[in-house]
């Protein structure tokens, strides 16, 4: 039943289809960066058009514009049958036939499948209406997932089924354009294949599909055409069959990532340092199960895994942001009792959390004060601030790390993601931390700054710090780390001491549980 890779590509060639959606010259800026700098994008009937790009390239902003979450600053959107439109909000987008299956399904767990599919279209469901909607829901689901009962509560469904419900919901509104935003990020390989055959079904019934992903093999398996965004601009819009994977990597990341990926990995070059951080049986009810782990001084240890595998929970427990229920943390060989973040800080541990704005920065404060946030012990030992000294130190970091704009008095919310991250790293460098816990250190950061952050991390390791790095970008793990641990379901399922033979594919398989523990 499932199409093979070839047949998909052939079908593309002989069915160009009519134009469903056309975006021209879309410009969108946010407090900080020009996220889209004049982007063109179009989509035909019966086409799967992949949208690719690094985090921060403008993918999600373009999606937000397309689905009415945010209006563009300039540029036009034209939809077949409606002409040029201004999309006010996601409801309006749905009415125009554009639906989005988002990364994290926005369904109501307390309601059943049918109710979710028709959510917002019905008021006060009477019993008669309910039966009618259930019949309709069954009809929509029949070709997608006949086994799924429409009276099941959505809260009890798995990720793959949730996506099916989301797809059904967009179809129920008569969507002709369906966007998928990283739909496979929490699916097992088997579920992913199921989703792909579903997407092909949609395509064959004449829908236009926008497929957002940064996974190159997937894009080759499913798409007809690829548009690549980099730094808010379209760098390619080509038929999938005409693009070579190496070329694609180059287009997505610019030359440097390809260089970095291909540079020789020195297996476990820095593992001989003394033990800096050791975990023994660290547990947290329902989240973490007896994690054992050692990170040495001078080493970058990567933590790979799917979203929800417990990686963030683990570093938060080490740092004392959440309480652990069991196990021991050793720092430099000595057990450390961590009750709260200040205990971890005192032991020389730093956490650079995944959500900078929510967890690391005080947006109303300027760069200098944000830099000083973890360093009141140094800058105000008596309670009164040593402003001059702090200003000097801030300016030194601004210069050394090339933080832009290069003024200590700028409010930190006006900095780009990369510069914000540098301020946070500077804060912890100044605190004298020797163990750095990085949670998605380059998420949402543009490519140029990303490499600066990577260089900084390598420098830290070289200077003898121990780094524990969470990343959902496998290339980042492969490029940075000396050793890698893979987490799944709150357990550390695999530790790879020699990364020389490690590939993105293999990591994915460990993370999704396709390969049994060796």
């Amino acid at each position, binding site marked *: 039943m499932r199409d093979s890779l070839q047949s998909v590509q052939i079908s593309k060639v002989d069915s160009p289809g009519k134009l469903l959606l056309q975006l021209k010259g879309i410009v969108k800026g946010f407090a900080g960066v020009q996220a889209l700098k004049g982007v063109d994008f179009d989509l035909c009937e019966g086409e799967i058009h992949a949208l690719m790009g690094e985090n921060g390239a403008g993918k999600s902003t373009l999606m937000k514009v397309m689905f009415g979450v945010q209006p563009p600053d300039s540029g036009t959107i034209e939809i077949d049958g409606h002409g040029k439109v201004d999309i006010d909000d996601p409801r309006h987008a749905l009415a125009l036939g554009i639906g989005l299956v988002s990364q994290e399904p926005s369904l109501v767990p307390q309601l059943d499948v049918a109710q979710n599919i028709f959510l917002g279209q019905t008021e006060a469901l009477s019993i008669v209406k309910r039966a009618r909607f259930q019949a309709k829901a069954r009809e929509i689901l029949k070709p997608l997932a006949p086994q799924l009962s429409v009276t099941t509560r959505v809260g009890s469904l798995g990720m793959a089924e949730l996506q099916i419900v989301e797809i059904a919901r967009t179809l129920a509104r008569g969507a002709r354009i369906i966007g998928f935003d990283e739909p496979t990020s929490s699916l097992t390989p088997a579920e992913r294949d199921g989703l792909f055959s579903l997407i092909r079904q949609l395509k064959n019934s004449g829908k236009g599909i926008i497929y957002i992903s940064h996974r190159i093999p997937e894009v080759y398996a499913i798409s007809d055409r690829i548009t690549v965004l980099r730094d808010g601009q379209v760098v390619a819009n080509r038929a999938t069959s005409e693009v070579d994977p190496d070329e694609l990597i180059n287009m997505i990341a610019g030359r440097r990532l390809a260089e970095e990926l291909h540079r020789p990995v020195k297996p476990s070059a820095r593992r001989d340092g003394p033990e800096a951080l050791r975990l023994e049986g660290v547990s947290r009810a329902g989240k973490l199960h007896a994690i054992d782990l050692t990170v040495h001084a001078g080493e970058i240890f990567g933590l790979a895994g799917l979203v929800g595998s417990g990686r963030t929970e683990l570093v938060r427990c080490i740092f004392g942001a959440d309480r652990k229920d069991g196990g021991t943390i050793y720092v430099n060989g000595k057990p450390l009792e961590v009750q709260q973040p200040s205990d971890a800080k005192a032991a020389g541990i730093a956490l650079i959390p995944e959500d900078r704005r929510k967890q690391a920065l*005080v947006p109303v404060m300027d760069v200098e004060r944000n830099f000083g946030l973890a360093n009141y012990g140094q800058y105000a030992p008596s309670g*009164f*601030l040593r402003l001059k000294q702090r200003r000097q130190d801030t300016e030194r970091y601004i210069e050394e790390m090339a933080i832009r704009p290069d003024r200590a008095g*700028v*409010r930190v919310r006006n900095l780009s993601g990369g510069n914000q991250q540098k301020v946070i790293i500077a804060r912890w460098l100044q605190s004298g931390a020797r163990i750095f816990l990085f949670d998605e250190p380059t998420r949402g950061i543009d490519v140029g*700054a990303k490499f*600066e952050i990577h260089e900084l991390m390598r420098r830290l390791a070289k200077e003898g710090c121990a780094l524990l790095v969470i990343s959902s970008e496998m290339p980042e793990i492969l490029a940075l780390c000396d050793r890698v641990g893979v987490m799944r379901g709150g357990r550390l399922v695999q530790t790879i001491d020699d990364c020389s033979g490690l590939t993105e594919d293999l990591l994915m398989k460990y993370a999704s549980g396709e390969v049994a523990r060796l």
Partner: protein
Amino acid sequence: MTNDRVRQVSNATQAPAVLSEKKINLEWIRSVSVLAGVALLFIVFSVLTNSFYEPANLLDILLQSSINTMIAVGMTLVVMTRGIDLSVGSVVGLSSMIAASLLQQNLLLGIVVGMLVGMVCGLVNGLLIAKLKLPDFIVTLGMLSIYRGAALIYTDGKPIYGIDPIFRAIFAGDLAGIPTPVLFALAIALLAFLLVRYTALGEQIIAVGGNEEAGRLSGINIDRVKICVYAVSGLLASFAGFVLIGRIGAAEPIGGTGFELQAIGAAVIGGASLFGGEGNPLGSLIGALTLGAMQNGLTLLNVPSFWQLVATGAVVILAVFADQATRKRQ
């Protein structure tokens, strides 16, 4: 290649510099519009009445606003942590009753214990909010009732007459022609301003209100900061209570009723954001003077005091509305 990289980054960050200036403008507009409002108020009242602008009356406004200024400074610190203290009016009542009763035995005892009572009231608020993670609004609303009840229970609802004359000279006297409450209020506002500007605690107050989680993950002791601001708020409320009983010459258990609204109003007019992270104790001084000037002017215009309550409430809501509107745009 490194140069290349740096150039790329600096290109990407040109825009923010411009944006930040736009935002500074927005804040500037905000403070200018407050000052413009105050100026307008003064002009209108000066035109409509004969005595508003006379020095004696202006000094009177300062005196009348001094109690509210003291409470508003404490309120500003609380609001800056994204909290609220509704119990201040009752703390005024309770601490001034206890002080008045002890003053009859010993001046110093009355002052010290009175201030301690205010501080302990604030500490209890802070402990319940920080340690038990109870909502500030509910805790201080409950305490508004409890502290008031305690003040009434203390003398079975009876007022205490006969405040020590030395006490009155200190807290409601004159120094070189200037009323001491005015001097105290100015000193308190200035000290709080210096606290915010030049101490770790001051910045931590902003950090807690601006982003509590970021503060916590930077190793700041959030609970301590919260307990501190509520304790200071209580302490300043007891101080305001001293001025109140000093001026009246008697202590009433219902003294200070409704002061919380005046203080919140002064704080917000003065630029404190109920969303936390922003505020200025000197601004709350301006805010208190604005409310004081308005009430004074309305009195001169023979507007009944019942209507003054309506006007005060309306101005406070208006100030909060302006705060919401400007914050949202950011």
